[in-house]
């Protein structure tokens, strides 16, 4: 957890006592209990949260308040969970969003 702002001139010292462990794409990490999954991952240096369903390009946190839906992940097997709105719990199994196995059909006429 290297990216934490531990000392702050106004907000004081960060309480790091309540830690939990979780996995992201099979790798074990430590985070703070009940912080957002998004902040736990960023604190561990992880920016890439998913790959676009169609193009496979990378996506991460954008708005951090639940509005943009860019940070959706699999949490304990549930699809489309927003990392920025979900509190981190002990032993959570988190997986990044992946491209779909088959391409989405292009419905536009051929000569469009």
């Amino acid at each position: 957890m290297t990216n934490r702002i531990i000392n702050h001139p106004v907000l004081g010292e960060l309480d790091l006592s309540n830690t939990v462990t979780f996995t992201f794409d099979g790798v074990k990490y430590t985070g703070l209990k009940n912080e957002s999954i998004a902040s736990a991952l960023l604190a561990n240096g992880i920016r890439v949260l998913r790959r676009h369903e169609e193009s496979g390009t990378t996506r991460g946190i954008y708005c951090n308040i639940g509005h943009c839906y860019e940070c959706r992940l699999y949490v304990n097997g549930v699809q489309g969970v927003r990392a920025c709105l979900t509190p981190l719990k002990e032993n959570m199994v988190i997986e990044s969003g992946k491209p779909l196995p088959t391409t989405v059909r292009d419905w536009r006429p051929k000569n469009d």
Partner: protein
Amino acid sequence: MTNIIIIGAGPAGLQAAITLAKHNEKVLLLDEYMIAGGRLLGQLYEEPTGEWWNGVEKSNQLWKRAKKLNVDIRLQTSVYDLERKDDAWIVHTNNGSFEASKLLLATGAAEKPFSIPGWTLPGVMSVGAAQVMTNVHRVSPGKKGIIVGINVLSAAIAMELMLAEVNIVGMTLPFKTEVTNKSSSPIDVMDSLLHVSHMAPSKFIQLGSKLMKGQWMRKVGISLYPKNGVKIWDVPILLRKAVVEIIGDEVVKSVKLVTIDRYGNIIDGTEETIDVDFVCIAGGLYPLAELAAIAGCPFYHIDELGGHIPLHNEQMKTPLDGLYVAGNITGIEGAKVAMKQGEIAAFSLLNDLHDGSFSENVEQAIESVKRTRNEAYIQFHPQIDEGRRKLQKYWLNNQEDNEFIS
């Protein structure tokens, strides 16, 4: 059945809930986030009195007061639909559906983005996202970042990031397109910055802004404006630079900057690259009003209030039966104004529930909002009063039209 449902546990929603609960109303307060407070959570600035406005602390105080008064607060509850059935509003959420005779929308504001090439790369985030990461979650958004978009919100957040020792190489403009328009023109941006100059500790900026009240002086000022910027709170304000591309393979690695003239046009051959690992996009705030639209409320676009505003009167009532609004959904202003608006909405609701016996409280709350607005330390839009007047005119027209029809 609960009498009242409030959507949004930010400063407006929390204050409304507290006021209602104090008068023995049963209130259900819903919010999508995991902590109550809304946009207030991220705020952190020093007031002229020398006291710190600490959003996390203020939010916690409001939440505790509401809890103590037995407000039913349900966090992590996303509202996805509203329905009007008979005399009730039905609110559909991921945690079930709820019903009430009165509904208060206090959904706040969201941030406008600039879609710069490369903006989907991880490491690019809204400036508010960086604020919440830094002040609420206490995680640094990165090692070295740049802010694209110079406005009241981004200037305030830049200061907060510096306070937490997050390295910001500068604040720049987005490049000029039909969409970015005013946000990409140095003259217009300088114009808007004049209204926050009192926040700048630098005498140069304070003095400079006094000299630049006139249009002609501003043009000269921009021409003379140093290409390497002027520092506010140690953050270089690069009014003569624009970001044209965000570069990276899997994540952000750098940004491409160009020098621009005073109208925002790119000067050829001035490209340079700066290494960063995060980019904050700051397009300003707009009222988050989708639920008012679903409810069927009429809207008006009012620039001074930040976007499309659901029609409402000074008592925070919409033309729809039992539907009220408060906070940034009514226009972009600070948290203190939002709290006072929550109070108006609460008294308005009480007044309607109890045959007009709270009309004096409503009037007092309206006056209190006006006072708070005039004393506001950070004013997001200088013409906020003008915007509010415009909306009142629309309201009166709407009332007249309805009378004419009936």
